[in-house]
C-alpha cells in the first residue's frame, strides 16, 4: 500500500511538467501553423490599418512634409467637404441602384434555369461568363457599346427612329449606364448562389404542398422564396459590401464624370491620396467610410438575425 502511494506521488510529479510541456507544445505547433498567414495579415492588413489611423491624424503628404499630428482637423475638414459628401452620396445611390437588380434579376434567372429546360450549359455560361472578365475588359466592351456615334446601342436605337443617347456623357444617364454595366458584369455570381440554393430545397416539401392543393405560383411564394431567405440574406450582405466598394468600372468608364456625378467615395479617397498627395486627409476619409461600412454590416446582421434566418 505504502509503495503504491509513493508511486502515485512520483507519477504526479512526473506528469505535471509533462502536461505543461504538452500544452505549450500545442501552442508552439498551433502558432507555427498559423504563423505564415498571421505574418502577412499583420504586415499588410493590421499594420496598414493602424498606420492609416495614425496618418488620419496628421497632415502627411507625399513628400512627408507637414507630417505632424493635427488632431481631428482632417476629420473636421472632411465633414465640411462638399466633394466628400457628393462622392459618398454617389456611392449610396449606386449601391441602391445596383443592389436591387443584382438580387432580383439573378433570382428570376435562377428560377427559370432551375425549371430544367434544355440548354443548361448555355444558360450558365451566358450569365456567368462576364463575371470572369477583368474590369478593364468589361469597360472596353461597354465603352464601345455606349459610344454615342458608333456604338451598337445607339445604332439600334436610331434604326428604330429614337434619338441617340449620350450614355456616359449625359449627367442624367451616366450612373444608370454604370449600373447596367455592373449588373451585366457581376450577375453570374449571385445567379450561381441562387441556383445552388434552389437545388438544395427538398422535394418532399413540394409534394406535400401539391397534395394540399397549392398551385405552382403558390408554391413559389410559400415555399421557394421563404426557403431561399438565408441565401437572399447572404447575397444582400455580400452585394451591399461589394457595391459600397465600387471603383474599377466607374473610374475606367466615366472617370467619375460627367462633372463628378458618378465619382464614388473610393475614387475620392484615391484622388486625394494619389493625385492630391494628401495622404493624411485621404486616410481620414477612408476611416469615415470604413465606419459607414461597419454600421451597414452591423445593421444587416441585426436584420438578418431578427428574422431568424441564420
Amino acid at each position, binding site marked *: 500500500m505504502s509503495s503504491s502511494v509513493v508511486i502515485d506521488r512520483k507519477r504526479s510529479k512526473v506528469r505535471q511538467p509533462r502536461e505543461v510541456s504538452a500544452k505549450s507544445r500545442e*501552442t508552439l*505547433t498551433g502558432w507555427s501553423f498559423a504563423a505564415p498567414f498571421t505574418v502577412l495579415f499583420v504586415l499588410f492588413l493590421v499594420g496598414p490599418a493602424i498606420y492609416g489611423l495614425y496618418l488620419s491624424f496628421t497632415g502627411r503628404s507625399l513628400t512627408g512634409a507637414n507630417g505632424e499630428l493635427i488632431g481631428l482637423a482632417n476629420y473636421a475638414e472632411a465633414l465640411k467637404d462638399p466633394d466628400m459628401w457628393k462622392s459618398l452620396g454617389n456611392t449610396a445611390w449606386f449601391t441602391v441602384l445596383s443592389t436591387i437588380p443584382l438580387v432580383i434579376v439573378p433570382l428570376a434567372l435562377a428560377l427559370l434555369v432551375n425549371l430544367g429546360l434544355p440548354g443548361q450549359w448555355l444558360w450558365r455560361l451566358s450569365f456567368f461568363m462576364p463575371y470572369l472578365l477583368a474590369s478593364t475588359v468589361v469597360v472596353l466592351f461597354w465603352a464601345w457599346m455606349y459610344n454615342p456615334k458608333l456604338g451598337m446601342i445607339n445604332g439600334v436605337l436610331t434604326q428604330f427612329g429614337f434619338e441617340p443617347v449620350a450614355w456616359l456623357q449625359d449627367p442624367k444617364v451616366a450612373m444608370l449606364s454604370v449600373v447596367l454595366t455592373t449588373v451585366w458584369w457581376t450577375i453570374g455570381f449571385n445567379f450561381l448562389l441562387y441556383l445552388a440554393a434552389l437545388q438544395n430545397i427538398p422535394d418532399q416539401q413540394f409534394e406535400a404542398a401539391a397534395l394540399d392543393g397549392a398551385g405552382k405560383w403558390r408554391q413559389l411564394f410559400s415555399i421557394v422564396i421563404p426557403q431561399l431567405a438565408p441565401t437572399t440574406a447572404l447575397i444582400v450582405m455580400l452585394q451591399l459590401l461589394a457595391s459600397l466598394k465600387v471603383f474599377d468600372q466607374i473610374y475606367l468608364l466615366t472617370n467619375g464624370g460627367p462633372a463628378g456625378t458618378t465619382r464614388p467615395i473610393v475614387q475620392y479617397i484615391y484622388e486625394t491620396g494619389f493625385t492630391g498627395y494628401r495622404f493624411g486627409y485621404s486616410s481620414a476619409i477612408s476611416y469615415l467610410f470604413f465606419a459607414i461600412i461597419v454600421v451597414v454590416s452591423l445593421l444587416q446582421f441585426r436584420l438578418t438575425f431578427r428574422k431568424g434566418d441564420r
Partner: protein
Amino acid sequence: MATHTLTRAPRTLTRRTHKPGENPWALGRIVAFAVLAVMAALWLVPFAWAILTSLKSETDAGASELQLSPPDGFSLDAYRKVLAAGNIPAWALNSLLTSVAITLVTVATAALAGYAFSRINFAGRRWLYAAIIGAIIIPPQVLIVPLFYEMLAFGLVDTYWGIILPQAFAPAMVLILKRFFDQIPIELEEAARVDGASRVRVFASIVLPLSRPILAAVAIFVFIGAWNNFLWPFIVTTDADLMTLPVGLATVKSAYGLQYAQNMATSILAALPLVLVFLFFQRQIIKGIATTGFGGQ
C-alpha cells in the same frame, strides 16, 4: 411556371430532366424558354459585338451605321497588329506569374491557419481567430494609402513582390477552410496520432488529400480575383514592363485612340485565358461557389 422545382434535385448543378408523364413542352415551359433565350442573348451581345468589331478593318469598325457584314470582309489583321505591337504577351506573363504566386501563397497559408484553428488548441487561438473574422469586413480599398506608404518604405513599389504580397492572404478563405476541416471526422487523425504521426504528417497525408475539392475551389477563386484585380496593381506599378494585364489594358485604351478593331481584339485576347479556365474547370467553379459562397471581385 415553377413546374420543375418539383423534380428530384440532384446535389450537383447538372441538368435536370422533366418528370415522366409530364408534358415537357407545356405552354409555361415554352414561355419560360423564350424569356430565358432572350435574356441569354442580351448577356451574349457585348461579346458578339466585340468579336464582330475585332474582325473588321479599322475603316469598317469606324463606320457609323450598324453593319453585320463589313464591306472590306472579315480579317484577323487587328489581332496581328495587337500581338506584334503591344505589350500584351509581357503583361499576360506578369499576370500569370503574380496570380499563380498569390494563389499558391494564399492557399498554403490559409490551409495551415485554417487547420490550426480547427484542430490545434493553442493559447491565443480565440483572439487571433476573432481578429481574422473581424478583418473580413475591412474593404482593402480603404487601406491603399497606408499600404502604398508601407510599400515605399519596404522598397517594393514597382516590383513583383509589391504586387503579390499585399494580395497573398485572404481572411475569408481561412474561415471557409476551417469550417471544412471541422467536418472531417477527428477519428481519422486520432488513429494516426496514436501511431506517433506528427501534426505536420497528419495534415499533409490525411487532411490535405481529403480537402482537395475545397482547396481547388479556393484556389480558383483566388486566381480569378488576382487575375482580374485592378486597383492594387494599378497603384503599385508605374513601370509599363511590370504591369499586369488589367492595368496594361487601361493604358491601351488611350494609346490606341480611335482604333476600335484593335481595342476589341485586345479585350478579346485578354478575356480568353479565364474563359478557357472556366470551360475547363466549370464544374469545380460552380460547385465551389455553391458550397463556399465566396468569390473574387
